[in-house]
């Protein structure tokens, strides 16, 4: 399954959570792992909506070395992140948040890749293996 969902409004974040939850359940992830990946997705989606001026989510079930996993790609075409190392630090925030979104999301998944280019946008790819 390969789907791209818009991430523009609060409502889109809720729909994206439901889609991610459905796929995680379909894959057979445990309740705890389902909750972790959906929460990570929610953090990334909010970043895309609030800081990236909107973006999109792609959810896919992937296979590697006989393992199955849920991979999420959240991308936006916003201003990009000036200092990625700083943005990945616990407690650092560009706004009014707690500053745990990105580093927190990284702890909730098995694989986390982020690329960001100033003026071009940000893409985060995360995977939770079964």
């Amino acid at each position: 399954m390969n789907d791209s969902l818009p991430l523009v409004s609060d409502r889109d974040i809720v729909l994206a959570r439901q889609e991610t939850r459905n796929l995680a359940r379909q894959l057979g992830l445990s309740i705890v792992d389902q909750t972790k990946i959906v929460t990570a997705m929610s953090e990334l989606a909010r970043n895309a909506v609030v800081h990236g001026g909107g973006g999109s989510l792609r959810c896919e079930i992937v296979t590697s070395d006989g393992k199955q996993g849920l991979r999420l790609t959240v991308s936006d075409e916003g201003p990009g992140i000036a200092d990625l190392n700083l943005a990945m630090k616990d407690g650092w925030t560009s706004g009014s948040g707690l500053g745990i979104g990105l580093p927190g999301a990284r702890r909730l998944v098995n694989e986390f890749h982020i690329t960001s280019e100033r003026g071009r946008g940000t893409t985060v790819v995360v995977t939770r293996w079964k």
Partner: protein
Amino acid sequence: MDDRIALQLQEDLTALIEKTGARGVLIDISSLEIVDSFIGRMIGNISAMSQILNANTVIVGIQPSVAITLVELGITFADVRTALTVERGMEILTGVEDSEKVGDE
């Protein structure tokens, strides 16, 4: 629960505390399948705001998977009072109420 509803809850609840003079607030979040940092912050804010308005807040019904995820995310609810069930939450609230009355006399 979307972001706007969470923000609305914050406003409605504080208005209601002022209007009714409530001394306790019990929030059951057993229906929430996830609590991310935004909703976590709202819960912390509601708890702090209620405290300032002289109402104790107890959050009940946090699912085990949500508790595990919250801690890994970095949210410990250190300043938020929690209980497993509505009944235990009520016990905390009424217990606080009673002991404060004794203290006032």
